[in-house]
Structures are given as C-alpha cells and as structure tokens.
C-alpha cells in the first residue's frame, strides 16, 4: 500500500537536514507567519519565489512536493471561482449579469500565493527530519503534551486506518458494490465510515490499555539527543532577518 509519508526524504543531506530541529521549527514557523500575515501582492509573489528556493535548497524533489501540493491548489481554485465574482470592486470584465472584480481577483491571488508559499515551506521544515524527531523537537519546545500526542497518534494510526478502510471497501467491492452518484452509494459509504469509527474507538481503548500497562500516566516521555551549534544560529538568523524584511516591506508597500 502506498504510504503518503512527509519524511520520505529525511535521510538525504542538505543545509536543512543538518539544522537543529528545534531551531528549524521556530525559524521557519516565523517565516511562515510573516508570509501569511502579509497583505501585499508583491511581497506574496516574492515569498513564493523564496519558498521555491528554500525547497530547492532542501533537496526534496519537486515532483514529491507537487504531488502533495495538488490538494492545496484545488482548494485555492475555489477562491478564484468565488472571490472575483463576489467581492465588490473595480470591474475587469462583464459578461451579461456576471462581473469579475479586480479586488476579488487580487484577494484570491493573495490567498493562493500565501497558501502555496506556506505549504511549500512545510517541506524544508518537516520533510527534512524524521517524524519522530519532529515530535521530540515539539516536546522540547514545550508545545502542550496533549497536542504533541494527538499529532503523533494521528500520524502513527493514519496508516492503520487507511488499511482498515481499504479492507472494508474491498469487502464491499467483493459483494458487487459499485460506487455511483446515488443514494445507495452514499448510504453504504456512510455505513462503512461509521464502522471504521467504531473500530477506531475500540482500538483507542486497546491502545490506552497497552500504554497504561507500561506505566503511562498521561504524559508522553521520550529520549532525544539534540545538539545546537553555531551554524544552527546562523541559519536561524538568516531566516528571521528575511521574515523581518518581508514584514516591514509588506507594511511599506
């Protein structure tokens, strides 16, 4: 079964791979915030270019990035359909009763550029270290333990969930279930999804029992080995400076 793993390229070597996970998470998060809070179309375009360069530096193949980016692009497409037609402003084109506004197009472009840049930056941030390292770095950064556990369990069990879903749909297919755009398909699919949730609930109880039997008291403890060096701070400094420039330039423009 194909496993959609974000850390598929965590083993390669790049300036991002060798960066201390904790500092990398903070620095790139700041950069992402500076991009998504920016209101300038020019800065957003520049941010997209910057994000592409950073992905290039991380050595993660663009083919891999694009596969994961397609859902974001699909999501952003709705903004391009809805916003130019609904946001009031200067008219670009008028076709009978439909008018496309400049403001709507601008906002849709701004949202799309910011979203794509932010998602692109996730790859050098998370995709350059193994998932368990990300979890440990989040713990060391004092991110609330319950939140860290939720992320960890979601990632660990999404594969089990997918496998169970696949098995159930195969069992349905084996009994001549044909997917279609009708009420029957909807009813059967919702029943299958309902059963998946019941299975998940039962599994949660078993996992909890298994954790408790090994001394779990509600707080997740792990071992890690993080070492910070001068280069880590230099990289962080560069990224934070870029984030600051983007923020200041966004206010000026």
């Amino acid at each position, binding site marked *: 079964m194909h*496993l959609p793993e974000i850390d598929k390229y965590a083993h390669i070597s790049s300036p991002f791979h060798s960066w201390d996970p904790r500092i990398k998470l903070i620095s790139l998060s700041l950069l992402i915030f500076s991009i998504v809070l920016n209101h300038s179309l020019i800065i957003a375009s520049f941010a997209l270019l910057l994000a592409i360069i950073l992905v290039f530096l991380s050595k993660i193949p663009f083919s891999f990035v694009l596969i994961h980016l397609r859902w974001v692009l699909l999501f952003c497409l709705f903004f391009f359909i809805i916003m130019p037609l609904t946001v009031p402003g200067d008219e670009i084109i008028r076709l009978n009763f439909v008018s496309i506004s400049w403001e709507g197009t601008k906002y849709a472009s701004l949202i799309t550029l910011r979203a794509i840049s932010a998602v692109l930056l996730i790859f050098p941030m998370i995709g350059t270290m*193994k*998932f*368990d390292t990300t*979890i440990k770095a989040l713990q060391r950064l004092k991110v609330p333990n319950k939140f860290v556990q939720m992320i*960890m*369990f979601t*990632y*660990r*069990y999404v*594969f*089990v969930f997918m496998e169970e879903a696949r098995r159930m749909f195969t069992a349905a297919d084996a009994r001549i279930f044909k997917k279609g755009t009708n009420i029957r398909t909807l009813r059967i699919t919702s029943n299958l999804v309902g059963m998946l949730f019941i299975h998940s609930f039962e*599994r949660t109880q*078993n*996992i909890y*029992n*298994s*954790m*408790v*039997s*090994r*001394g*779990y*008291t509600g707080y997740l*403890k*792990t*071992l890690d080995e993080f070492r910070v060096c001068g280069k880590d701070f230099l990289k962080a400094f560069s990224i934070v400076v870029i984030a600051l420039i983007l923020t200041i330039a966004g206010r000026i423009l």
Partner: protein
Amino acid sequence: MKEIINIKGLEYTYPDGTTALCGIDLTVSEGESIGLIGPNGAGKSTLLLHLNGILRGKGQVKVLGLEIDDENLMSIRSKVGLVFQDPEDQLFMPTVFDNVAFGPINTGLEKCKVEDSVKKALEEVEMEEFSLRYAHHLSFGEKKRIALATVLSMNLELLVLDEPTSNLDPRARRHLIKLLTGFRVTKIVAGHDLEMILDICHRVVLLDKGKIITNGEPKEILSDKSLMETHGLEIPLSIL
C-alpha cells in the same frame, strides 16, 4: 517457591452487565508457564487484564505478593509485561526504539540504562537492527516480535501474552514459539493455538463462561476428548 500470582474469588462484570469472570481461584509459582485456554468469550483476555490492574474486579488479586491497588500499581506494572493480541495496539509510538523504550522511560530509568535495556530486548527477539525503523513499516511477524520486546525491556517477573501466535505464518509462528520457550521468566499464555500451548506450557487452565473448569498437566487436559469438545475446543493433532 515464590508465589507470583494469587487470585481468590475474582469476579468481574462488564458495564453492560455481562459477567466475564465468576469465582476465579488461581495460584501461579515462579518459573511456571501457564496456558490459558477456552472458547471465545470464556474470559481469558479479561482475566489477563486483571494481572496488571487494567481491570479491577471483586475478590483478591495478588501479583508478586502485592495487592493490586493504586499504591502498588506502578510497581506491579513495571514487573508484569502484558502483550496484547494485536501488535498495532502495542506499537503506538512511531519508531521501534521509542516503542521498546516506552516502558523503561516510564519507570524512571536513566537514559543510558533505557538504551541498554532496549538493546538487550531487541537482541532477545533477534531484531536488534530494527531499532530505527518505523513501526508501520514492519511485517506482521516483525510487529509481533517487537511487541514482545516492548515488555522484555522492562524488569519483568511475569510475562502475560494474549494469543501470541494469532495471524502469524508458520515460519513466524515457529520462530515466536522458539523465542518464548527460551524465556525463563514466569509466563501466562492465553490462546487457541493448542500446539503452541503444548510446546510452551507446564500447566493448562481451562476457562469457560468465566469459570475455571479444570487446571493441570497440558497433555492430560488437552487429550481429554469429551472435555475439550464440551468446551468448544479440539484435541491438538500432535497428541491424537
């Protein structure tokens, strides 16, 4: 010989009203290997969950001389290794190392000692090179062995296994049985794989409808055709 388990008059009813255990009396001594057999719904898994205090019924349950109560719970759990039937439930951390280290870390061991116990546990199940692998990348047989390592890494005095050979292919099953036979620690093994019970256990406890039906020599019990058939079991082929 040191008494590892002492259960007297144990009763347990699930919140939906189903009586799972009814007047269980059982004593297990150090070094024994007990096979817990019985049909589906006999109460085997429920009984196992009482051994490290996940479930608490009426009656007395003493493990390693300690009554199961809030005060002794952590101490008992650090010495009773419970391996669940489905390894996906046991391997909840992302990597093999983190899964095997989970118990020792919770018992408060120092980092170097945790690493040492993980290494030893993985060696015991012959999986030492799998330490950095993701749990979801392992085969079912590998997951079963790592699930075993997750409890071996603790300072065990009692190993409790629920259906250890279920869903394993013959080679993985033989391998697991070989490993289990080699462990000198006190064991309680619940399952329907009666050949495995014959291979591993010194004593068999037959459970049905929440009650202990009989308790004794594996060959004697497993070769009793009428007893086995009455309780939904069959004589293993090797003693037919």
